[in-house]
């Protein structure tokens, strides 16, 4: 049962996200798959340094045995912000594409673009 820890699950999630990008022809599903991939990465970072019963790194922690690592937490906050920015810009583009080509399907948009 020790195979089910945060890191392995996040790797599985990551590749589920990649599968969603490869196999689905809807543009919105592509953006959702990107979100899944980013969640997987956040999970990986946060579970990478976990120890048993860690204490949050606030205030005076010299007496506690295991302190949670603050560096991945800070990095992941930045990553969530970047994810929001990317998703917002991508969704705006998808809306414009939908109004322009009338479809959210990658293949149909490619045909209409070539013509």
């Amino acid at each position: 049962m020790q195979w089910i820890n945060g890191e392995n699950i996040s790797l599985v999630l990551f590749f589920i996200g990649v599968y969603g990008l490869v196999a689905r022809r809807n543009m919105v599903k592509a953006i959702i798959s990107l979100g899944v991939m980013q969640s997987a990465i956040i999970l990986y970072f946060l579970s990478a340094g976990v120890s048993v019963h860690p204490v949050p790194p606030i205030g005076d922690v010299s007496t506690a045995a295991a302190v949670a690592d603050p560096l991945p937490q800070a990095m992941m906050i930045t990553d969530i912000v970047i994810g929001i920015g990317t998703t917002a810009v991508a969704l705006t583009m998808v809306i414009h594409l939908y109004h322009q080509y009338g479809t959210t399907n990658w293949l149909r948009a490619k045909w209409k673009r070539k013509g």
Partner: protein
Amino acid sequence: MMYQDSPIIRVVIGLLNPLMLLLAIYLIFNGHSSPGGGFQGGAILATVFISHYVIYPYEDIRIRTLQFMEKILYLALVLLSVLVVIVLPVQLSLWQNQLYMTIMNILIGFKVGAGLTLIFLRFVFHEGGL
């Protein structure tokens, strides 16, 4: 709109709104010494406005005002950081640092709240064309 005015959502969001607002302000003001900070508080602040829009879709919201406010906040952010980092090269004491961080967190929080609300409103009011 798609669905009629749903009483459940109206009541629940009405109950939760003050709590969300309080949580947002708490996160913003305590960003320098506990988890949270400007960005997280700003995101919850945006949630307050967006959820208010969900229950009562008002069309006459003034987007220009919100954009103008966001630009002013961004400018204030940049000016303050330039001021403190460049113009005052002295080593600040602890309470001065805390004050600086708190003010920056407030500015960031309001800017992010305004920005995310604007993104949402732009999506909703997009009637077609650019």
